[in-house]
């Protein structure tokens, strides 16, 4: 190998010298000798590497790699395909102040005091012990005290109920959506914003009674024409109520009404028009909201009456609202309503109320039991069928 390198160095020298004009024979013959020596050495080298290299390729091989045999078909393409293009993404500059951003602090909105001890003394702080649970009448009485003329001086303040909900649905990691409902209450009270209701019914009696119940506009086919011509805007009404006999005519304005089109599911289509109208006009509207981070935490904040109303009337309203909320419970184990507080602004007090007597929890259990019974019956019938078939096979 050393010999070979030596020869190559000499050859290079010769090439450089050959450029000059005065070339001697001696030098030429030396170069020939060197050339031959080089060929021999290159052959030896080729054999030593275990490859067959023809002498012809040697002269050019110094500058450019050339193979005298064909490369295998598709090899280059394969190699090209194999090469994965790596895209270098340029990292954007992030200011140091924004790096490693802390996650938002989770606020425990559901306060559980079941771990706290029961108060033993007659003077105690609600921070260290369980909250007192009032009966509805007591809680209302407490709020009346704080709204006494000598204190807040607002005896006709709104009484609100704050219901906390467990929004877990039947399946794990699924949660209920927000929902808005209107409950008809036995003792309606003045609401701040009267809800506008458009009523469609044919008979004059019904129209009169609908007006008495509080409808904004009542009419029949002539109203439909007004809507089509644009004289009556549907945007002025929150609800559209209709008697079933008006449905064929109403179909022509279905596209204009869109979601407001009366249907049975939302309770806007029915025979008992005065009842429906009074529900939409003077009922209690509530929305169950869901927390953005704690998906299982929902709450309702709605008014149930005025503090100067009769306690029994307030209680009936409260009961109606709670029952309606409870009707939305998912078919799963565990509580749906977790806590119920009475609030009367401007007082910041939140009084926990015992709500269990207003919702029929046994009803839920009974329904579950019935389901179980059904399942058992089904399984029994399946068993008997199986027995029959097996008997048939044996027979």
């Amino acid at each position, binding site marked *: 190998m050393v010999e070979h390198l030596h020869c190559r160095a000499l050859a290079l020298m010769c090439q450089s010298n050959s450029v000059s004009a005065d070339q001697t024979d001696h030098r030429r013959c030396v170069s020939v000798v060197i050339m031959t020596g080089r060929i021999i050495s290159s052959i030896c080298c080729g054999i030593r590497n275990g490859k067959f290299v023809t002498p012809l390729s040697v002269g050019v091989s110094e500058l450019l790699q050339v193979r005298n045999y064909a490369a295998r078909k598709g090899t280059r393409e394969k190699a090209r395909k194999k090469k994965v293009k790596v895209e270098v993404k340029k990292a954007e500059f992030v200011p140091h102040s924004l790096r490693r951003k802390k996650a938002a602090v989770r606020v425990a909105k559901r306060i559980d005091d079941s771990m706290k001890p029961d*108060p*033993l*003394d*007659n*003077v*105690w*702080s*609600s*921070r*260290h012990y369980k909250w*007192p649970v009032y009966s509805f009448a007591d809680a209302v009485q*407490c709020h009346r*005290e*704080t709204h006494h*003329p*000598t*204190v*807040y*001086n*607002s005896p006709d303040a709104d009484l609100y109920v704050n219901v906390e909900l467990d929004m877990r649905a039947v399946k794990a990691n699924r949660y209920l959506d927000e929902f808005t409902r209107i409950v008809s209450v036995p003792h309606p009270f003045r609401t701040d914003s009267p809800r506008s209701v458009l009523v469609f019914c044919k008979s004059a009696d019904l129209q009169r009674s609908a007006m008495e119940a509080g409808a904004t506009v009542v009419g029949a086919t002539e109203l439909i024409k007004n809507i089509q011509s644009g004289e009556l805007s549907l945007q002025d009404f929150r609800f559209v109520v209709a008697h079933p006999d008006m449905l064929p005519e109403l179909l022509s304005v279905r596209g204009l009404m869109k979601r407001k089109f009366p249907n049975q599911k939302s309770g806007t289509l029915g025979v008992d028009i005065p009842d429906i109208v009074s529900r939409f006009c003077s009922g209690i509207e509530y929305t169950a909201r869901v927390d953005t981070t704690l998906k299982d935490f929902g709450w309702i904040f709605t008014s149930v009456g005025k503090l100067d109303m009769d306690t029994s009337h307030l209680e009936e309203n409260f009961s109606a609202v709670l029952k309606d909320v409870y009707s939305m419970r998912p078919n799963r184990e565990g509580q749906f309503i977790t806590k119920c507080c009475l609030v009367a602004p401007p*007082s*910041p*007090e939140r009084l926990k109320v015992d709500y269990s007597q207003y919702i029929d929890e046994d009803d839920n259990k009974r329904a579950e039991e019935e389901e179980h019974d059904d399942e058992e019956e089904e399984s029994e019938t399946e068993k008997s069928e199986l027995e029959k078939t097996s008997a048939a096979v044996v027979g």
Partner: protein
Amino acid sequence: MWRQILRPVIPMRFSGNPLLCPSELKVHQQVRTTFILKRRWPVFLVKKGRDPSSKKMRARHYVYDLVEDTDVRIKKDLEVILTDFVAGVGNRGDRITMKQSAAYHKLLLPGLAVYASPENIEKFSHLKDEVDYKPKYSSPFVEKTMKILQNMNVMVLMNKDVPWKIEPWHVRISFRKAGIHIPEDAILLPEEPICGPNMEMENKFFEVTVTINNTEKVPVKCVIHHWSTHVSNKLPPVDEDDQPRMPVFPVTVSETGSQANSDFSTAS
């Protein structure tokens, strides 16, 4: 190896007693840690009649999987019998269930309690029935409640437009709004009637006496604040403890204050 197994005894920071944890005392105690392991590749049995110790163990027989670290096992609660009154915990002779560490450092080490073994239960059963023993407070939680009451300023919100005279129920609802539940008969108002609306009394305090469990008496500061239903007529909200408040009745307050100082360390 011994350095790893022996470590200094945990400082007794729960007890709060400096005598119990002298800084220079360094007792080394063996750490009682047991790890339950399992061989990943079990060693097979030797042939019948052969000496088991002659069995050649391979390297793989020393590979173990951790089954359980007994050090992190959840410890059961400990039951103790109090031999003395402990504030916030219980009276003498009470049987109390607490977390092991807390019970050890808070009660057993300072000698306030003994283990509730059958012998101790029998031995200390007389503690409760002793006639001449009088506990310091009517209930173990009274001391804490008294501290809370002494340190608080209860805002008594009264109307700015309607004439009033402060009655016990006004004070009761003010306490309830502040999160303290008190029966009305436990509140003793100052003898002089407080009537209003009177802007001179705004942000000034008077003292009521609260009687806890019909025994302990605590003077509590009540601050008068006038509130108007009309927005334009409202007063700015009262600053919390920015300036020292003035009393409504300077003379009577100084008397009660001196009395209170003799009994309790009242918060200024």
